[in-house]
């Protein structure tokens, strides 16, 4: 897996962004940026040449599902792999996220192993 991937981490809680950033660094991904909601994230995605999006769902402004839909609707971004890391654990919601085109879904609280596993799975599938 290419460890130089440029990754955008979107979460309204700075502690959670920091945890994800640290875990990604542990996994060898050092090229990360942060945004605190979809509204901030979307312009960054459009201009920042990101390879991978890790987003929370429940955020003020534009939430993660709306961000995911915007990404899928934008011809320049529609192929970007998206991993949702969220506390939203209702089956109905997971089905909706899957329908909206999410590539992986991690429920909080999560472990470094889970995060690594899901990221690897996403990229293995994309490489096929």
């Amino acid at each position: 897996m290419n460890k130089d991937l440029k990754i955008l981490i979107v979460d309204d809680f700075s502690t959670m962004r920091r945890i994800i950033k640290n875990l990604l660094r542990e996994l060898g991904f050092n090229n990360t940026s942060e945004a605190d909601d979809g509204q901030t994230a979307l312009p960054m995605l459009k201009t920042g040449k990101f390879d991978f999006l890790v987003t929370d769902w429940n955020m003020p402004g534009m939430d993660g599902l709306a961000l995911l839909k915007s990404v899928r609707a934008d011809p320049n971004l529609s192929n970007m792999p998206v991993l949702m890391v969220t506390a939203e654990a209702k089956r109905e919601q997971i089905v909706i996220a899957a329908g909206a085109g999410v590539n992986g879904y991690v429920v909080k609280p999560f472990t470094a192993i889970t995060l690594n596993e899901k990221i690897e799975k996403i990229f293995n599938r994309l490489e096929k």
Partner: protein
Amino acid sequence: MNNEDKPEVVEITYLTQAYMNRLQSLNSAIESKDEETIINIVGELTTLRESSLYQELGMLTREIHDSITNFGNDERIAQLANEDIPDAKERLNFIVTKTDEAAHRTMTAAEETMTVMDGLSVEADAMRKRWSQFRNRELSKTEFILLSDEITQFFESVGLQGSTVNSQMTEIMLAQDYQDITGQMIKQVVTMVKEVEEKLVRLVAISGLADVPAAVKKEEAKVSNGEKAEGPQLPSADKEVVASSQGDVDDLLASLGF
């Protein structure tokens, strides 16, 4: 139950007696074809029926009035609304700030420790390579003197870095002091919420909504829109609705062809 029924039984007997008296008079008036008395007695019977209805209604009105007055006079409710609830909001906001601070403090200490440990392991690795060169007699005398100096410095640095790591660990431990204070505050808020709940239950009972089946009310309140984020679910949440672990999520996604 029996105690509650008794006054009603007494009243029925009293009423029955009153009706029986009128009916006996009515009977004799009919026999004697006394039209005026018949009309009077029928009038009396109607009044008797109406007055007992009004009496019941009056008693009910009094009960409701008393309940509402007592509820309104409960100073505790005003205190809850004016002081306790704003106070609870402040406490909860304080908890958010406090836990946020603690998380950042902990992560800063952990990050600094990781940097120190990374540095040490890089240094040790370089030193190990030079050391095995020395053991294989691959180093010149000058190179060995240089290595010997580096080793001395490394020992000193390990001692210093060790105490840095130690103080970072102490910092991490101290950062956990939020648990005590926020735990106490959360308990205070829970006590307050419980009191408000009791008052609300009383209010619902007074307004007569208590008869609405609890399940129906819950159902009405919980009409949810799947696209809306709802935040974390309790561990006790309904397993049919909520995926309780990452394993559940993975199974669900696998069933959708992921």
